[in-house]
């Protein structure tokens, strides 16, 4: 009986000791920062959803690194005896990761929105540049290389728009940078070139004013060719009577310098001969007195200065003729109207009628605005 009692007491005592040890271990063992780690994990996940890996890369990578360090330290501590574990570093890294993730999530949204707004503005601005290029330089004699750069710029802009519409702001940004480089460079260079050309505007204006005044004074016909707007105006007594579309030499920007440059000359000329029927291959033609004395003097000076080769010829045979209506600048330097239009002009003007050819009747700013 006594033995049995002793057995029961020993068993109960052992169980009590074991239970006490377990209880003590449970109570005094360091607790891992589970809540902190879970919070860090949620924040990191939110940052990922907000595309922080793309729009707040540095902070997001720091948050990820801190979370990885947290988990590595936790695993390392778990490998130790339960009483020797220390979760301070785990907690620190978890808190650091949560903070960085939260900052990354916020800045990602802000960066993404800012980039989106910036891209929208850029896309609109580049589309405006693209339209200006089409409008101002549609028939400007740009080189094939420049034309190709414009087309490439337009395509990159389109690709940027597709990426933008799909919410891919970083690829859109890269495409826009490339498109901007091509389009803006071309536009700026072409505008500078055009600006240089328009330095002659005061001279053109003076020619136009004196020609109209002459037409008014003598109640005579006058033809004015505005090269930039591709217009040919017929005046009588200082008043505009007709307006025609004109086609010019392929290389129409600037004054004619020599034979074969495919440029349409600029200056005040007179009709010297009228051709029709078999006399011309362009239905009807009005030959002007290019080169006049001024042209000859300029040609001589340019050869002297070495601007043009000494072997150059000044050229001639510049006419206002029919055969136009092609929609491009195709002549060797003449001004082409449609056959119907040259019929009208031909019937009204005579040998000696003044023909004034200018780069533009509108100033540079007006040309840009219109």
């Amino acid at each position, binding site marked *: 009986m006594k033995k049995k009692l002793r*057995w029961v007491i*020993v*068993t109960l005592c*052992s169980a009590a*000791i*074991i239970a006490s*040890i*377990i209880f003590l*271990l*449970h109570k005094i*063992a360091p*607790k*891992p920062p*589970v809540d902190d*780690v*879970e919070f860090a*994990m949620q924040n*990191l*996940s939110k940052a*990922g*959803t907000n595309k922080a890996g793309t729009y707040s890369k540095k902070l997001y990578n720091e948050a990820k690194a801190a*979370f990885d360090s947290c*988990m590595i330290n*936790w*695993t390392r*501590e*778990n490998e130790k005896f*339960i009483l020797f*574990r220390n*979760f301070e570093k785990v907690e620190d890294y978890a808190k650091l990761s949560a903070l960085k993730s939260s900052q990354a999530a916020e800045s990602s949204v802000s960066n993404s929105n800012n980039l989106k707004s910036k891209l929208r503005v850029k896309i609109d601005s580049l589309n405006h540049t693209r339209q200006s290029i*089409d409008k101002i330089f*549609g*028939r400007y004699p740009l080189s094939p290389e420049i*034309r*190709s750069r*414009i*087309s*490439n710029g*337009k*395509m990159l802009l*389109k*690709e940027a*728009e*597709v*990426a933008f519409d*799909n919410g*891919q702001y970083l*690829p859109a940004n890269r495409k826009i940078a490339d498109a901007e480089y091509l389009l803006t460079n071309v536009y700026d260079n072409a505008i500078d070139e055009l600006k240089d050309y328009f330095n002659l505007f005061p001279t053109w204006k003076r020619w136009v004013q004196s020609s109209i005044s002459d037409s008014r004074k003598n109640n005579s016909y006058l033809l004015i060719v505005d090269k930039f707007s591709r217009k040919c105006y017929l005046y009588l007594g200082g008043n505009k009577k007709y307006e025609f*579309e004109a086609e010019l030499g392929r290389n129409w920007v600037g004054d004619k310098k020599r034979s074969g440059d495919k440029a349409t000359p600029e200056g005040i000329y007179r009709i010297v001969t009228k051709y029709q029927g078999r006399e011309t291959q362009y239905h009807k033609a009005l030959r002007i007195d290019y080169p006049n004395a001024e042209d000859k003097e300029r040609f001589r000076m340019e050869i002297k200065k070495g601007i043009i080769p000494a072997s150059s010829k000044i050229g001639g045979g510049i006419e206002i003729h029919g055969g136009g*209506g*092609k*929609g*491009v*600048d195709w002549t060797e330097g003449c001004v082409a109207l449609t056959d119907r239009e040259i019929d009208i002009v031909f019937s009204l003007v005579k040998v000696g009628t003044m023909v004034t050819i200018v780069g533009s009747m509108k100033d540079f700013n007006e040309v840009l605005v219109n």
Partner: protein
Amino acid sequence: MKNRILLGLAAFAMVALLSSCGKVPQAKIDAVNAAIDSAKTLQADVYVPAALAAVQDSMKAINTEIEAKKSKLFKNFKEAEAKLDQALLAAQQVQTDAVAKKEEVKKSVETLMTDIKAVIEENGKLMKRAPRGKEGAAVLEQMKNEMTTVETSVADAQGMYDKGAYMDAFNKVTAAKETADKINGELKEAMKKAGIKI
């Protein structure tokens, strides 16, 4: 003698208790990680990024849970094991979805390629018949330049397609198609205005 046996049993019980009841389901963890890696190899980050991120987040949560269990005196990984099973299925689903989405994008690129080649051909024919008066010819010159760029883009997209970069090819050819369609519309409009039968 009995006391010794009892003490031995108590010590054994202590050791058993302290060394925990469950074992970390390492094989399952490795399987899920391998499945996620495979999904990445299949470009899940490109074709199904949200689904991949969800699986990666699940895995992070499971790892946290496992570490939390490991920190306890009594370890029980049954719940984590069940979650790992689910994560494995989800990762495998991501692999399947990535392959399917990639195939879908590939097919879309093929369709776009076929469509754009037809538009390029049609534009070439329309350009020959388009009105050339007034600004027409100059505009046609611009259109020709742009169509050359479109053709270059299509060639680039084909190169991307051949390399398996279907998403890049899709974006490229979509932009080219929009440009070609725009030109096609403008040509038809100009012809309609000029009374030319299309």
